Each structure stands twice: as structure tokens, then as C-alpha cells.
């Protein structure tokens, strides 16, 4: 008995640093953010509030900046998740079908993962931007093919959204390609051999054998892709600068930070309400995705 008490003490001692940090920077904030979101007219300086209720949520949901951020975030999610997953699957499939130079191509396609997205975002901005000196590389290409040049950085909404989505896809693909390449490599060769003996076409092999076999991985990537895209923020800053509201390109996470800090900041209650709304959206969609994937994967996976 005495020994077990000593063991218990030791166990907690080893856990102490982790418990301290998690307590202060994760558990307490979780409770606190809920409290913030219900305290009305919270004042940062005097740390006082006037009442408790749903006012913060109502305010946020009626704020045109939030509505814009919500719209932007949903567009980014709906476009980039399917596009990046499909393209990654294509690249991973091609990688799995070659032997020469395979490592080189793999290394190149992983490169964006290890770059600072704010730094490379600047390069994208330069490529797409139209200045008095030059139309920018992309616009010159567009004109070369007979199109009309557009300012993708300070121009119309659709143009800004387009470059936003292109950059997001560019940033998220390396991880997906990596995961899908190893998923494809893990498919048992004997299935392919059997199919080839039967004279099945490669397209049929892909849709009937490969896809079902790696479908759990694809769904995993779709779910994490959804979560990641809903939290989009720093890629937007990289392209359009810190004043995302002015650019009309803010996202939900950006709205949270703008409410907290900077020229428009000082409203932790609104920030808290917006963060919780984001959390609820992500939570709902993740559950929804899990339900669908469970169904689909069990149908596709057979067994």
C-alpha cells in the first residue's frame, strides 16, 4: 500500500509539467472562452461586464464582416478540398506508376510543405499582381492566350478568390500527395496481378480495385482537409495583407483575430462567440463526414 502511494506520487510528478501547461493554456481557456462568449459588453480595461446572454452571438451573426468571412471560408472549403484531393490523387497515382526519377518527382512535390507560407505567398502575390510597371507574369500569360488581364490582388472578388484557391491548393497538396502515395504503395500487388491476368483495363483496375482499397485514406484526407480549410487564415494574409476586411477576403479565423487584436480589436467577447461558432460548424461537418464515410467505406471496402 505504501509503495503504491509512492508510485502514485511519482506518476503525478512526471505528469506535472504537462498538466500545468495544459491546465493553464488549454483547459482553463476552454472554460474561459465559453464565459467570454456569454458576457455582454465586456470591457477589457476594467474587466467588467453588464450582463449574461446571447448578445455576442447575435452581434457576430449580424455583423456584415462576419457574414463576408463566413461566405469566403465556405467558398474556400468547397472549392479547395475536392480540387486538391483529386489533383493529389492524380499526382500520387502517376507517381505510383513510374520507377525512373520517382524520388526526384516525390521530393519536388513535397517541397511546398517545408516552405514558409507567408513568404511564398508574397511570390504568388507578385506573380498575380498588376502594377503600373507591369501586368505581372500570370496576366502576361493570359494575354498571350488571348484573354484579358485582371488584377488578381486588388481587383474583382472572383479574381481574388481564384488566386486564393489556387494558392491554398498549392499549399495543401504536398501532404495529400505524400499520404496517398504511401496508401497506393500499400495496396497488395496480387490484386493487380489477378486483374491483369483477367485482362482488366487499367482504368477499371483503378476504379474497381485501387480506389476502394485506399478509400479510407481518401476520406481521412477529406475530413482533415475540411477542418484545415475552415481554419484558413495565414495564406490569406500572405496574399492580401493583414487588413483582410478591407480586401473583402477575411475568413472566420481572421475575424476572430481581428476582433481580438489590432486596430479593430479589443472585443474578446465577440472573438469568443465567433470562435465557438467556427468550432460548432467544424464539429458538425466532421460528424457529418464521418457518418457518410462510414457508410461509403464499408460499401466500397467490401470484405
Amino acid at each position: 500500500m505504501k509503495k503504491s502511494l509512492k508510485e502514485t506520487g511519482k506518476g503525478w510528478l512526471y505528469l506535472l509539467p504537462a498538466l500545468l501547461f495544459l491546465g493553464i493554456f488549454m483547459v482553463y481557456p476552454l472554460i474561459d472562452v465559453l464565459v467570454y462568449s456569454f458576457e455582454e459588453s465586456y470591457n477589457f480595461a476594467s474587466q467588467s461586464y453588464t450582463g449574461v446572454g446571447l448578445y455576442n452571438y447575435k452581434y457576430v451573426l449580424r455583423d456584415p464582416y462576419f457574414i463576408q468571412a463566413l461566405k469566403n471560408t465556405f467558398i474556400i472549403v468547397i472549392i479547395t478540398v475536392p480540387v486538391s484531393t483529386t489533383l493529389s490523387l492524380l499526382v500520387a497515382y502517376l507517381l505510383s506508376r513510374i520507377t525512373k526519377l520517382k524520388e526526384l518527382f516525390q521530393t519536388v512535390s513535397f517541397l511546398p510543405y517545408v516552405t514558409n507560407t507567408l513568404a511564398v505567398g508574397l511570390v504568388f502575390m507578385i506573380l498575380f499582381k498588376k502594377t503600373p510597371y507591369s501586368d505581372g507574369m500570370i496576366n502576361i500569360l493570359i494575354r498571350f492566350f488571348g484573354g484579358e488581364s485582371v488584377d488578381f490582388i486588388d481587383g474583382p472578388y472572383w479574381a481574388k478568390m481564384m488566386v486564393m484557391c489556387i494558392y491554398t491548393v498549392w499549399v495543401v497538396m504536398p501532404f495529400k500527395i505524400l499520404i496517398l502515395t504511401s496508401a497506393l504503395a500499400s495496396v497488395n500487388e496480387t490484386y493487380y496481378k489477378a486483374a491483369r491476368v483477367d485482362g482488366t483495363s487499367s482504368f477499371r483496375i483503378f476504379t474497381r480495385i485501387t480506389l476502394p482499397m485506399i478509400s479510407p485514406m481518401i476520406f481521412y484526407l477529406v475530413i482533415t482537409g475540411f477542418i484545415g480549410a475552415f481554419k484558413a487564415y495565414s495564406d490569406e494574409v500572405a496574399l492580401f495583407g493583414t487588413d483582410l476586411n478591407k480586401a473583402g477576403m477575411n475568413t472566420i479565423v481572421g475575424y476572430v483575430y481581428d476582433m481580438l487584436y489590432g486596430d479593430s480589436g479589443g472585443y474578446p467577447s465577440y472573438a469568443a462567440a465567433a470562435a465557438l461558432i467556427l468550432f460548432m460548424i467544424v464539429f458538425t461537418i466532421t460528424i457529418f463526414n464521418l457518418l457518410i464515410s462510414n457508410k461509403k467505406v464499408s460499401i466500397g471496402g467490401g470484405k
Partner: protein
Amino acid sequence: MMAEEKKNKGAGRGKERAGAIARYTLLSIWALIVLFPFYWMVLTSFKSYASYNSEYVPRFVATDPTVQNYKSAFTEVPLARYFTNTFLFTIITTALMHVVIILAAYAFSRLKFRGKNAVFALFLSLMMIPNELVVITNYVTITNWNMRNTFLGLILPSVTSVFYIYLLKENFEQIPEELYKAAKVDGTSDLKYLLKVMIPISQPTIITITILKVIECWNSYVWPRLITDDKNHYLVSNGIQEIRESGFGRDNVPAMMAAVVVISLPLIILFLIFRKKIMAGVSRGGLKG
């Protein structure tokens, strides 16, 4: 019959070659899309301010390469400062995190104590909490502690990671219990056993975690932005944003690109050296679900 088969084989080979050509073409296009921004930033960083602005149609080579932009990047903006800050931040955060997570993972995997399962369940449930939810209070906490614009304020909230504790615990548990029992019989203390046996055996996992954390630290933007407004404490991400918004003046794109190259290089070099380890680490670490 024989002839028929031969013909089929011949057609198959031709088809095979066409397929290979298509595959390599598509992959090359993809590689071009990935590499082009890198090429463009290096290229632009070697063009002089005057020649960059005089090229209405940008040239694909620097006709008159100059290193002036790199000089400007280090003299006109405190790039070296941002660099040192990020370097220190990355090293200290990663080191502190290892102490915290190794101790916790050891407690979960080897020690027997009351309440272990309950705490572990709590830890697992914390894995689902997005950072965006807790950052608001952390911002207020650090501000109240007067730690804005300090290294401590930057570092403290990111020295624990439930996911890494979990990853390491799984790894520790694969080390045979017999080793531990033998060490106990010999009278080896837990701490010594941890340092001399567990950590060396788990080195691959620890390296994986280090790599992921270093990438995360080097690229972190949101928290440093919230907690620092003094340029002397900026990290590279905030530095590059500052450079973009009010750096060299007159839209000096080549100098900006020089700064971008300098900031991107450390991770790219690290990647080229530890390519296999990093890719294996990311694919292991990424699969948290």
C-alpha cells in the same frame, strides 16, 4: 493463335510507351507548377530595382545579376534580428517541449499510479480542441502576466502537445516491459532508466517529433503576431509581413524577394538533407485521427 498473341503484345508495348510518356509529361507539368514560384523568387531577388521595374514583360533570366538586394535585406530591415529570434524561439520551444512530453509519455507508459486512465482520457479528448478556441484566453493571460514582447510569452503556450505525448507513449509501450523489470531489480532509478534506455531506443520517434515541431515553429505566424508588436521580437513570418507592408518602401520587389529567399532557405536545406526522415515523419505524424 501465336501470331494473334504476338500482335497483342506488340500493341501492348506501344500503349505502354504512350502511357509512360503521358505520365512523365503530366508529372513534369506538376513539377513545373511547384517549382516556378521558387524559381521566380530567386530570379527576382537577383534583379536590380531599376531593371525589375523597367521590364514590362519580365525576363526569365537576370541579365545583370546583383547581390545588392541581399545587402538591403540585411541592412535596411532587421532581417538578421528576425532570423535570430526565430532560431532561438524554435530551439527553446522544441527543447522544452521534449522535456514535458517525454516525462508525461513515460508516466503514461511505464508508471502505475492512481487516476492514470482518467487523466489519459482527458488528454485524448483535448486532442480535438482547435487552437483557435484557446488562443483568445491565452492572449489575455499572457497580456495580464506582462509577457507581451518577451520570449517567454512567445514560447510558453506551445511547449505541450497532447498529440506528441500520445505518439511517444505508443512508442514507449513497444519497449519490452522485461527491460524495465530487470532495471528495477538492478536498482536503476526511473529517471536513469528513461534517459539511458527509453530515449535512445525511441530516437526515431523523437526525431520525427523534433522535425514536425521545428517546421511548425519556423512557420508560426498567428501567435507571434498577437503577442509581439515590437519589431525586436518579431519572428520571420511577422517580419516578412512587416517587410511587405512597410519594408523597403517604393515597392522594392527584388529586395522583398531576397528576404523571402533568405527566410525560406533554412527549412529547404534541412529538407534536402533529411528528406527521407522528414517525409516519413510527416506521413506518420500527419495520421493522427
